[in-house]
């Protein structure tokens, strides 16, 4: 599942990033496999998006979020 397609408020876990020009930037910002990420806000025109990534707020455009692959976070109780 792609980060650009997830629902508001559902905690997801990043599994990988497709090759793209800003892959390094995303990873430096903390988008690495295993990191938990939740969609918290959608800008009024439907773009960009804002996420809670490991406790801080990161925003990006849909066109950027579609390079990040996520899956539902299973170990919610931890």
């Amino acid at each position: 599942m792609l980060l650009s397609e997830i629902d508001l408020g559902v905690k997801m876990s990043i599994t990988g990033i497709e090759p793209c020009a800003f892959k390094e930037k995303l990873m430096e910002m903390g988008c690495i496999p295993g990191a938990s990420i939740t969609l918290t806000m959608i800008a009024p025109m439907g773009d960009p998006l804002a996420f809670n990534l490991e406790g801080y707020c990161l925003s990006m455009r849909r066109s950027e979020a579609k390079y990040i692959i996520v899956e539902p976070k299973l170990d919610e109780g931890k």
Partner: protein
Amino acid sequence: MKVNRSNLVVALSGNPNCGKTSLFNHLTGLQQKISNIPGTTIERKSGWYTYDNDKIQLIDTPGTYSIKPKSKDEEAALELFQPNHSEAPDVIVYVADAQNLKRHLFYFSQLAERNIPMVLAINMLDISKAQGIEVNTNRLQKELGIPVVETNARKGIGLTQLKEAIHGQQFKCHYSFTDTSDNDQIIQRYNRIDSLLEKVLTQKTKNALFTEKIDPILTHPVWGYLIFIGVLLVVFQSVFMLAEYPMTLIESGFDLAGNALLDILPNNWIRSLLVNGIVAGLAGVVVFIPQIAILFFFMGIMEDTGYMSRVSFIMDKILRGLGLSGKSVVPLISGVACAIPAIMATRNIENWKDRIITILVTPLMSCSARLPVYTLLISIAVPDTYVLGVISLKGLLLLAMYLIGTIGTVVAAVIFKFIIKQKSLNYFIMELPIYHSPRWKNIGYQVWSKSLSFVKEAGKVILIVSVVLWFLASYGPKSEKAFSIQETQNLEESYAGKFGKVIEPAIKPIGFNWKIGIALLTSFAAREVFVGTMSTIYSVDDEEDVINIRKEMMAERDPITNKPVYSLAVVLSLMIFYAFAMQCMSTLAVVYKETKSIKWPLIQLGYMTALAYVSSFIVFNLFR
């Protein structure tokens, strides 16, 4: 390991919004200066403080997320940390936000491998505690092997301990974040940071932040935009109205000084140079300070509270199509008051291309200096008639001029979007920092340093051009001799007058005569000078007297055809010309200062003059 204690150079590093600037201001007080890194527009802030009678130099490095530069400007700023750099600091003080140690320690982990002694300042512990995050700094110190100091940059707590740590025994970080020297191992770094933090962090139940409550309102599809329009209205009104009083005061102050000089000094060229060249030029510099200070006060609040990144968030999609950034909104709107503070405000736009386009198109917004020109010309062109009984035709035309300026801005932005090549990657991967109340001290420093750098850098250019314009308007060639100089009382016989006559063939197609040609040259100092020049040419004593200038101009007839010179076509053509032409040396000086290149002000002068000429040509021929 000890370093030479005197001449100690300390670099401050960290992510954006980590509290670095507050710490810098607390440590140095007013003992700081801003200089450009040679060959770039990136400012380097350095300051100093004394400790045990030693003068310690403190360098503020840009807040970044990684040691790997993402733009040319960052590259220049981060060069300092390259191995064996001649200006490499003796100690790095790394400031990390306790709320998000994981990401803040990423950049730290890269710097830690640069073989430079470090001190780690853990900042904003009060906020992280409120969130339920506890940091065991003693344990962190043990694990890293470098001094770890708890600071509160906002309140100035922990400064003594920080200074002691800087001057105590110096250590390099011994925690290894990567196996090899290969810097690319981002995942490995984060994993090592995770295992480090497992030992020092305890996270209790997380309380909802104030930010999480307020963000849904400020980014709301309706409230978000309404609040933003409200904020813009306050900012714009303040720049426009609040600045008026000090500006009038400055102008009358310089008038007084000029008149005093006229009384004291003998009537010769030195007096004329002093009064009409230098004092007038200085006035032209100082008069912009109120607007610059007020705009940067509000920009400082918006930036410091964290609101500016929400503006980018809600405006990004709308402005992306125009080749602009969400952060272009504030400069563009401020351009309606004055392009100078507006262009200085583009520093907040990180993306190089977005920033250049914003700089290039902002002067097309109808600034307040165009108002006197429009007022005079409209009073000539349009009779006192009312549309539908209530709407003044004059008012409508004025509104149309503002609209034309705005449309010109948008169209030019779209065109530049396709022409200018992207220098750095264009992405919108941006942290939305948590809200906090403005740090007035930081804002105060910013207002002060912006105003000062304007006076210092743009002021030089403005002053020189003023003196040149004074010379062109006060001196002319002796009759029949091209390369001779004599003082002239009559504007017609000055070099400016000759210039008007020389360019007359070029401006005839757009309906201008040589008298307007003179005004085009002199009003290059500032657009409103057009009115003053017109009154000089038509020998109206009081240059504020628009009605008399109007009468003189309206009465003038073409000696051959006996038709009025200032016909509707000519006046409309003039208005369009002033709407689009780059008739402002101060703006060009600021563009030069901000881009550190002669190329961009020249491109701006070129495209705006061409746009003005072509538009005036069309309008003149349409209405002829």
